[in-house]
């Protein structure tokens, strides 16, 4: 049942990315290009996703626990540190250069190309490097 839940969540996520156009780097870069021909699509995607999640979370949190697990696993830290903000900045550079964040890049696998393959290999390498640089993982 847990695997089925994972599959359904992944499927909805993948459908959402494709239907919204986030699997098109040109749309994403068009949003980031505030000095060019600005493309507002990403605002609608993020807005729709955040509002739906905001309402959805509050509905499911009314239960004591999730359906297939014994507890909700939520991040608890609220402080800001260099690792968080520096990491976000590095991610921003890569996102701006490629128009890919991890979700759309992986969801674009059915339309695989050499540049996308290069991105995905380097993405996994970057995750590995981040784990090496993070004590206690």
């Amino acid at each position, binding site marked *: 049942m*847990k*695997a089925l839940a*994972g599959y*359904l969540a*992944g499927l*909805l*996520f993948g*459908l959402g*990315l*494709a*239907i*919204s*156009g986030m699997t*098109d780097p040109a*749309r994403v870069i*068009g949003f*980031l*290009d505030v000095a*060019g021909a600005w493309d507002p699509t990403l605002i609608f*995607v993020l807005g*729709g*996703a*955040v509002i739906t*999640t905001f309402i959805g*979370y509050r509905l499911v949190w009314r239960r004591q626990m999730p359906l*297939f*697990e014994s507890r*909700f696993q939520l*991040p608890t830290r609220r402080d800001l540190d260099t690792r*968080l*903000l520096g*990491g*976000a*900045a*590095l*991610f*921003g*550079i*890569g*996102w*701006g250069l490629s128009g*890919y*964040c*991890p*979700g759309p*890049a*992986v*969801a674009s*696998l059915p*339309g695989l190309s*050499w*540049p*996308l393959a290069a*991105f995905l290999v*380097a993405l996994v*390498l*970057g*995750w*590995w*490097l981040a784990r090496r640089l993070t004590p206690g993982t």
Partner: protein
Amino acid sequence: MQTMSALQGLLGGVLIGLSATLLMGLLGRVAGISGILSGLVFERGGDRPWRVAFLLGLVSGPGLLMLSGLGWGNVAGDSGAMTGAPASGLTTMLIAGLLVGLGTGLGSGCTSGHGVCGLARLSPRSMAATLVFVLVAMLTVFVARHMLGGAP
């Protein structure tokens, strides 16, 4: 066209929100793509099966739409396509991929974990991270396009 694109964006966003709600309601987990997938590659344990299934779902969403030929994509300037062409060549994509991996690894999240789930949880860390990566990405595009002069 602009209105249609915005509506598709909104619909896709709602589907992503439903996915995040489902994962929280059923498994109690945040739908952060970088966390789920890097965990799948580098961690052992009980989370593997659902993470593998999530990856299969994530890829099969666009894949099934592609096979169906419904033309529900929102690729700029190509109404039949589900995925757009990469923005750059191999070298830039290698650098970009490395930065996205390193950055989301160190910063504990990407557009989904911080941008969607974190904002919906009203997490101060996610709000700060989202502000930083959106502004830095805008600055990167400005420098690459308008100062170094790539595309128009």
